[in-house]
């Protein structure tokens, strides 16, 4: 039935369109070609000016209306130390391109309006103007140079990797279809070695337990970081390309299987601080659940989020982790509470290569597990 209606509508529209076409052809025959073209020229040129005004007003008005979503304006302030420089580059670029945009659009439509064909006028035979052309080549070149220098300055600073002397926390995020495995280095501050060949049900990251650096590593369910401390995120992928994206921190880097990448940043606002700032904006002072007026305010339930920004298959849009920035002492407390993955899940079991060895922090080695089947447990 719907199909029939759709088909009928298309047929009707076609007939209608053809009739409009025929009527206008007739009208132009009656009026005479030249006069008709004159009327058209006048009418279309007016439409040009009207369009220009409406377009520029709408562009500006919508820009102002959505100002709060633009980089560097409104509540979405950068939550990282380097984010400000990126937002500034954005604003500077917006300034220059905004000027060019307004000037060129106005000239385009005003000329289209002003120089419409009128009977009895002839166009001016202007084929070029060397001086003008040089000027309008040099000015964009200068502006571009300025933008390049500013941009690369920021880029090289942001993307530089850390040297060993610097004080930083290193964490690791591994993208997979469809989520993130997070790994922290634990008290020794170092991430242990891993290999994709060692991945199994009990070893989701393929950590090599023979590497002692792995023994204190833990796998939290969310990223928790202290305010003010440099963080180096080691970004890897298990199966296909993913991308480690922290929108509020202006952090983004592809996760490539077989090629670890990194991003260095310093969080500067705790989650609580960010929430407080959001509470100043009306769009965040609404109930978080629109259907439940008694629910918490949107700003109260705000969380920094980790998202995937490289198409990775059917669940690409659902790879979410929460990111929490806390005061340094709270971070220490949280870290102290985390259990190492090895000691919680592997120690004393089949995959444990340290059976019979007393490890740091232990009193005695756990007994070898009683054989549960006749298969040899020797590794």
């Amino acid at each position, binding site marked *: 039935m719907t199909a029939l209606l759709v088909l009928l509508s298309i047929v009707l529209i076609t007939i209608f369109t053809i009739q409009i076409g025929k009527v206008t052809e007739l009208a132009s025959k009656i009026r005479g070609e030249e006069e008709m073209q004159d009327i058209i020229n006048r009418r279309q040129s007016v439409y040009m000016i009207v369009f220009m005004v409406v377009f520029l007003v709408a562009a500006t008005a919508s820009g102002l209306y959505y100002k709060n979503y633009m980089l560097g304006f409104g509540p979405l302030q950068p939550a990282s130390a380097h984010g400000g420089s990126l937002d500034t580059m954005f604003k500077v670029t917006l300034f220059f391109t905004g000027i060019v945009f307004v000037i060129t659009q106005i000239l*385009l439509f005003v000329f289209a309006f002003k120089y419409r064909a009128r009977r009895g006028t*002839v166009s001016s035979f202007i084929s070029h103007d060397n001086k003008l052309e040089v000027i309008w080549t040099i000015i964009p070149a200068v502006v571009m140079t300025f933008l390049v220098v500013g941009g690369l300055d920021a880029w090289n600073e942001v993307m530089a990797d850390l040297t060993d002397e610097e004080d930083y926390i290193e964490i690791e995020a591994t993208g997979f279809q469809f989520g993130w495995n997070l790994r922290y280095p634990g008290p020794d501050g170092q991430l242990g070695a891993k290999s994709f060949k060692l991945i199994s049900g009990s070893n989701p990251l393929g950590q090599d337990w023979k590497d002692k650096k792995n023994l204190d590593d833990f796998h939290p369910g969310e990223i928790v970081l202290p305010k003010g401390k440099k963080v180096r995120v080691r970004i890897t992928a298990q199966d296909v390309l993913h991308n480690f994206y922290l929108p509020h921190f202006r952090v983004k880097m592809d996760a490539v299987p077989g090629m670890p990448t990194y991003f260095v940043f310093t969080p500067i606002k705790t989650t609580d601080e960010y929430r407080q700032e959001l509470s100043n904006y009306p769009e965040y002072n609404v109930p978080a659940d629109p259907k439940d007026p008694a629910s918490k305010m949107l700003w109260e339930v705000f969380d920094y989020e980790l998202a995937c920004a490289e198409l990775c298959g059917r669940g690409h849009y659902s790879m979410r982790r929460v990111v929490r920035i806390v005061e340094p002492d709270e971070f220490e407390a949280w870290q102290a509470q985390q259990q190492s993955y090895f000691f919680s899940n592997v120690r004393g079991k089949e995959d444990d290569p340290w059976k019979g060895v007393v490890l740091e922090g232990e009193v005695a080695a756990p007994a070898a597990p009683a054989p549960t089947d006749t298969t040899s447990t020797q590794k």
Partner: protein
Amino acid sequence: MANVATNPAVSHEDQLIEELGYNDHFHDHHHGDRYQSNFVTTYIFSQDHKIIAKQFLITGMFWAIIGGLMSLVFRLQLGFPEESLAWLKPVLGKWIVVNADTGIGTLAPDFYYALVTMHGTIIVFFVLTAGLSGTFSNLLIPLQLGARDMASPLLNMLSYWFFFLAGVVMFFSLFLSTGPFSGGWTAYPPLSILPQASSGSASGMTLWLVSLVFFVVSVLLGGINYITTVLNLRTKGMSMWRMPLTVWAFFITAVIGLLSFPVLASGFFLVMFDRNLGTSFFLSEIYIGGKALEHVGGSPVLYQHLFWFLGHPEVYIIILPAMGIVSEVLSVHSRKPIFGYKAMVYSMLAIAFLSFIVWAHHMFMSGVNPFISNFFVIFTLIIAVPSAVKVFNWIATLYRGNVRYTAASLFGIGFVSMFISGGLTGIFLGNSAIDIQLHDTYFVVAHFHIVMGIAAFFGMFAGIYHWFPKMYGRFMNETLGKIHFWGTMIGAYLIFWPMHYIGMAGVPRRYYRFDTFQSFSHFDELNKFITIAAVVTFAFQLLLVINFFYSIWKGRKVTEKNPWQASTLEWTTPINPGHGNWPGNLPTVQRWPYDYGKDGRDFIPQIEPIGPDETPDRH
């Protein structure tokens, strides 16, 4: 169409060709040949460039409708995720998942990504490459150069049929049970190589690759022909500096294509090897589907380099023909020379050269060494300069002109507006620091849709309305054309402008839904608005399709050879040019193509000799 008063230059032009034209004895040996002797050789396996142009155009229009409909389906899912799409089940079958309790149908995420992928692939390659440069290069190069046909009509015919074959294979892939390819038109491995990563990477990807390899063959065959024809078959007096900007654009585009498409094909062959022969060009250290794969040592980033080495020049392959068409259309309808003809040519050459050294601006966040990104930022922002020069030149062409409003010139003006808008946002993205935040967000989607999805299309529309009389000896209906223009101009801005805001707020592209993230859930209203705008704007395109096909048979007949009063050679052929284009001599060229408004004369055709009192040529 303006000045109606019978133009005495019509028969004057015939006279000029007879007296000053070049006799290549074409018709001496024409009689008795088997060329175009039956329906199949005339309309199907035609070797006449004009028929081939129409074949490219109509096939391109077919794919534009398919690609556009695909975008409407996924936009409906995005804008109205709570509404039921169950009514599409008869067409999309198992790809619409109907909730047993509520009866609400949603698009399966796999198929959403398949639609997005197919939409991109179809429109970028089949519509904007084949449908745009295939059509107009074929139609205009011989006609505007004074040639009988392309250098090799046989290769020309093959270039269309390889395109057709590519289309058949791609169309077939839409109906596979594992689904068409769904890894994005960019097809990054490992996703595109591993069937276990996505069902679209099974047979769908194989067919996608086969289709595009055929497509590359088509582009190369066409490109070789265009280049050879431009270099060797220009008529007497047609120096390179007297060619219209359309031909310059098609020529430069063909060179870019010839140099860049083979790299894409090579990337695709390596993908095929990784998929089928166990090689590891693009794969390393992968654990998927419960097992560690054997592939070690390759790099997904290598694919990206090979892909974007074509991918970036590709967008200039798309835009340059549109630019050439707009230069021509604006000049003819303003009755004024294109401002800065030489600068226009040099800009296109600069753009062509620079387009080969900016590809990694698509890869700033790919994990490449940040040091190399410096070079790509520099060259990317440099390429903004010749692009800006072209915009200024178009605006200056209107200045003190006598602008005649036709559907063609409206689309020409609209093109400039769109290219300004879309080109400027490229400056944000080309700066790697800003790209950290904007990469893979809707800001990118807004940028490339405005330059390709609108501006390039506008160039194509301008070309269709302007050269329809040449193709079919009839006019398209002007009023419908103007309604088509305004609806599309307004609608297209309404669709893509809001996407900038969504992108700046950080919303990633290629997301099936946004409600999984707090940060990305603020734009429900805007998404609905965009979807509605898309449906309405697509509906306006029906005006073009109806107008086009109706006018082929019932359009107002062209009664004089040069309805737009243009100076270029294509308007000196008979109204329905047959095989060989000119019945007698080939025209010879005496001047550049832009003598509009010179010495108080409305226009001077290229075939007219320089008069004794004429102002010397100083362009």
